C-alpha cells in the first residue's frame, strides 16, 4: 500500500514555503549618519560684535540618535514626540570634533546602518549629552579656539554642560537627504549652527539671528558660559537649514 501525505501536511508545507518567501522580501539599503559643524567651525567667522573666531576643537557628544519614517511628515514646531512607522536607532555615544580636518573637510560620519529598510527617512532625533570620558569629559559641548579683535587675541575654552534633546523633521538644503532606495545609500545629517551662539558679523545687527545670539564679547570679558548661554534659546541643532525642536536642561 502506498503511503500518502495527509492533505493538512501538504497545506502546511505550502504555507511555510509561502511565508518564508515573503519574509525575505523586504528591501534594504545603507543609511549613513553625519554630523556637520559647517564652515563656521571649519573656517572660522566674525561674530556679531566683531570678534574674528577660529576653532581648534569643537567637541560635541551625541547619543540616542534615531532616524524615522513618519506619515504625515513630522513637524518640529509642534514639539510633540515623533510618531514613526519605521525607526532606526543607533546604539552608543559619539564624541566627535566638529573642527577636525581642514577648511574644506567634509561632514563627519558617525555610523552606517547597512540593512535599513528602504523609504524616506524624514525625521531624526538625538541628544547632546555630557561625555563620560575623553577631552570633553563632563561636558556636552567644548569649544576651544582663538578670538581676535582690534589687535587683541584671546585663547578661549568654552564649556557647555547642558544636555539637549533635538527633534527634527526633514533635512533642508541643496539636495534632499534621507531617501533610501533598494541597494543604494542615503545620508542623514545633524547640522550645528554656531552662528546662533556668537552671531554673524555679516548680517545686520538687528537681524533676528544676531538679536538672539550672545556674541563673543561676554566671553572676552571673562563670563562663564553657564551665565550667558541658554542652549534652549540658541537652537544649535538643525537638519541642514531646517529647524528642530530643542529642549535643554
Amino acid at each position, binding site marked *: 500500500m502506498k503511503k500518502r501525505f495527509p492533505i493538512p501536511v501538504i497545506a502546511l508545507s*505550502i504555507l511555510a514555503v509561502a511565508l518564508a518567501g515573503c519574509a525575505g522580501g523586504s528591501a534594504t539599503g545603507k543609511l549613513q549618519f553625519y554630523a556637520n559643524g559647517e564652515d563656521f567651525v571649519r573656517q572660522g567667522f566674525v561674530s556679531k560684535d566683531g570678534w574674528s573666531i577660529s576653532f581648534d576643537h569643537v567637541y560635541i557628544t551625541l547619543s540616542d540618535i534615531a532616524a524615522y*519614517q513618519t506619515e504625515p511628515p513630522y513637524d518640529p514646531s509642534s514639539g510633540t514626540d515623533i510618531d514613526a512607522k519605521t525607526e532606526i536607532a543607533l546604539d552608543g555615544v559619539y564624541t566627535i570634533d566638529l573642527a577636525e580636518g581642514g577648511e574644506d573637510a567634509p561632514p563627519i560620519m558617525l555610523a552606517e546602518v547597512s540593512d535599513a529598510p*528602504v*523609504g*524616506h527617512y524624514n525625521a531624526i532625533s538625538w541628544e547632546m549629552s555630557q561625555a563620560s570620558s575623553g577631552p570633553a569629559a563632563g561636558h556636552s559641548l567644548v569649544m576651544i579656539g582663538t578670538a581676535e579683535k582690534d589687535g587683541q587675541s584671546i585663547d578661549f575654552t568654552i564649556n557647555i554642560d547642558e544636555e539637549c534633546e533635538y527633534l527634527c523633521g526633514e533635512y533642508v538644503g541643496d539636495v534632499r537627504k534621507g531617501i533610501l532606495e533598494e541597494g543604494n545609500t542615503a545620508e542623514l545629517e545633524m547640522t550645528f549652527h554656531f552662528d546662533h551662539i556668537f552671531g554673524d558679523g555679516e*548680517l545686520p545687527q538687528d537681524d533676528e539671528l544676531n538679536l538672539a545670539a550672545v556674541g563673543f564679547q561676554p566671553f572676552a570679558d571673562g563670563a562663564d558660559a553657564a551665565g550667558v548661554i541658554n542652549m534652549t534659546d540658541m537652537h544649535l541643532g538643525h537638519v541642514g*537649514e*531646517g*529647524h528642530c525642536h530643542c529642549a535643554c536642561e
Partner: protein
Amino acid sequence: MFIIKLKWQSIIAAIAITMACLFMPMEVHAHGVNINYTSNVEIEIIATYDSGIPMAGAQVAVYAPDDPTTPWLTGSCDEEGRFSFAPDTARPGIWDVQVRLAGHGGIIHIPVGGDTTTADGQVGFSHLQIGIMSACVIWGSTGTALYFSKRRKT
C-alpha cells in the same frame, strides 16, 4: 441560399450607411458653441520667519510626488514671501515645497488630487496580504489534492 444572400446584403448596406455617416459634411449651426475645460489648481504659499517677517526673495523648490529628489519647479518668493504654482493634477499625491533663505529654510507638504497618500517606500507585503495569499495558496492546493485523491478512488 436565400438566407445567406440576405445576410451579405444587410452587411454591405450597414457598411455603406456607416461610411456615409462618417464622411458626410456636418451641418454647422450659426449659434453653436463648443465649451471645453481644463482643471487647474493653483497653490499659493506664503513664507515668513517665526517673527512674521516675509522671506522675501527666498529660493523655492517644488517636488512632485513621483520624483522626490529632482525639483519639478524652482523659483523665488516675492517681497511678501508669496509664491504660486499650478501642480500637475495628473500626478496626485503629496507635493513638497521647500523654501530657503540665508541659511534657514523649511518644507511644507501639500496634498494634491484624489489619492493624497505618499509613497511610503515600503516593499514586500503587509501581514494581511500575506495571510490572504497564503489562504489562497492553501485553498488551491487543498482543492487540487482533493481532486486527484477523488480521481484515484474512482
